[in-house]
């Protein structure tokens, strides 16, 4: 494995570790910081690929990822919980660290097997399964959590998986840039809309209003 592939592999495993951390954490503030770190790692990956392929598009994407995913969205989310940052946690999912960490690992293994059976022939490069695994981890988060902010974080994790997949498989493809920018904007809009609706319902951004994402 050449040094470029080694960097991609290391950052990929780092992203997977953040996914495991997100699954096993129940407090919201560390979760927000966790998704920021995951996004930062993704930006590092994009930056590295931009450097090795001399791609301006990817460099812009890396900058966007840092600005929007690692800084702006976490900042907006943390502002929403600023009054109760130290105590806000997932309440409804009967959250157990051991169970969730083991479930996350088991799901990663299952996702890898599914990938091997379905997409491995199309994407044979090493580490190609990691974005797929990340996507499934994001889905697990959405399925097992009910807190509004944590649901948004699950969505952001899935978004990160899409960007990760695009960075690996669609390098230099202009449409990919547009899709990523769209996802970034969508992420910001989603956060803003969900929080403003919650606020309209309750009047102010109170803790109880964020405990569950009601449809």
């Amino acid at each position, binding site marked *: 494995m050449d040094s470029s592939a080694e960097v991609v592999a290391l950052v990929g495993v780092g992203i997977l*570790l953040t996914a495991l951390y997100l699954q096993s954490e129940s407090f919201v503030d560390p979760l927000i910081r966790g998704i920021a770190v995951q996004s930062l790692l993704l930006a590092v990956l994009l930056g590295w690929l931009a450097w090795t392929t001399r791609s301006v598009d990817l460099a812009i994407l890396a900058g966007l990822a840092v600005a929007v995913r690692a800084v702006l969205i976490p900042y907006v989310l943390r502002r929403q919980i600023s009054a109760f940052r130290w105590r806000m946690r997932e309440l409804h999912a009967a959250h157990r660290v051991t169970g969730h960490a083991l479930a996350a690992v088991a799901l990663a293994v299952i996702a890898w097997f599914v990938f091997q059976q379905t997409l491995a022939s199309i994407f044979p490069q090493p580490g190609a399964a990691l974005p797929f695994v990340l996507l499934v981890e994001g889905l697990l988060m959405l399925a097992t959590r009910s807190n509004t902010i944590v649901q948004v974080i699950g969505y952001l994790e899935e978004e990160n998986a899409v960007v990760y997949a695009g960075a690996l498989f669609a390098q230099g493809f202009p449409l990919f840039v547009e899709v990523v920018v769209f996802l970034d904007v969508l992420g910001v809009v989603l956060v803003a809309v969900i929080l403003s609706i919650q606020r309209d319902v309750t009047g102010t951004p109170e803790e109880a209003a964020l405990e569950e994402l009601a449809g």
Partner: protein
Amino acid sequence: MDWATQIVNVLQAATVLLLSPLIAGIAYRFKAWTESRTGPSIFQPYYDLAKYLRKETLRPANASAVFLVAPFVAFGAYLLISVVVPVITPYPIPFASTVDFLGGGLLFGLAGTVTLLAALDSGSNYAALGASRTVSFAAFAEPTLIIVFFAVAVITGTNNPYVTNNLLSSSTSAYLAPTHLLVTAAFFLLLLAETGKLPVESAGLMEFGMLEDGRIFEHSGRLLGLNRWNGWLKQFLLYSVFVNVFAIPWGMNAAPTVAGAIENIGVLLVKLLFLVGVIVLVEATVAKVRLFKIRDFLALSFSLAVLAVFAFAVLGVP
């Protein structure tokens, strides 16, 4: 077997036996510094050992021979491990071919099992409680250890610690491979749990949540001394495997001579001092987790070990 090899063999066993209390003493001293205390002398474990060996051994009324024999069996197991793992040589010494990683794990298991049996044999509820807790958490720790062995096996294609040391010290890419980094992290967490360090256990305080010390609660005199020595041996051996095989595989003199082995004792001490410093730093910065949260800690270690094998499967390289 030439005389130099025999001397190196004896030297390695003597290093483990004689320096294990010193490393424990240095750890106590470092820890005292982090608590703004002067702390005991780094030779305190030797003084304690001498004191225990002079004292009378008392046996609980209902205890059988198991209670008396167990510390010696455990001591023998640790002594055997001390001549089969890389401690002061990066090349296999004669006994090394006796067991591989898995065999070493089984010997650690033997020592742990006889200590548990002795605790149960004492008839003391408190010792039995310690034994029961230890087994409860070992049920989570043992699978991690097995997965760590699997990960080591996929890195090198063999389960031999000397081959692992050789590969990792000669190949930067193998050292920086995600599988190796993850398995090192998993083994480090396991090391904290197995040697009774925070956040799992604050050993030596005779507190209610103690695990390792709970098992030897009924032992006294020479048997208690031997049990304490066993604890230091286990710690020294696990530390040696961690630094020489996983974390810092470099720096050992590969010349199969007595002088080379003596030089490697110094190298090992420097590595161990660094590791002790790191562990004391961890102990100074984390709080003890609640008893039932220890499973979470071990689950994290297990997850990292599984991810190490997973990374190999996904990335196709160690």
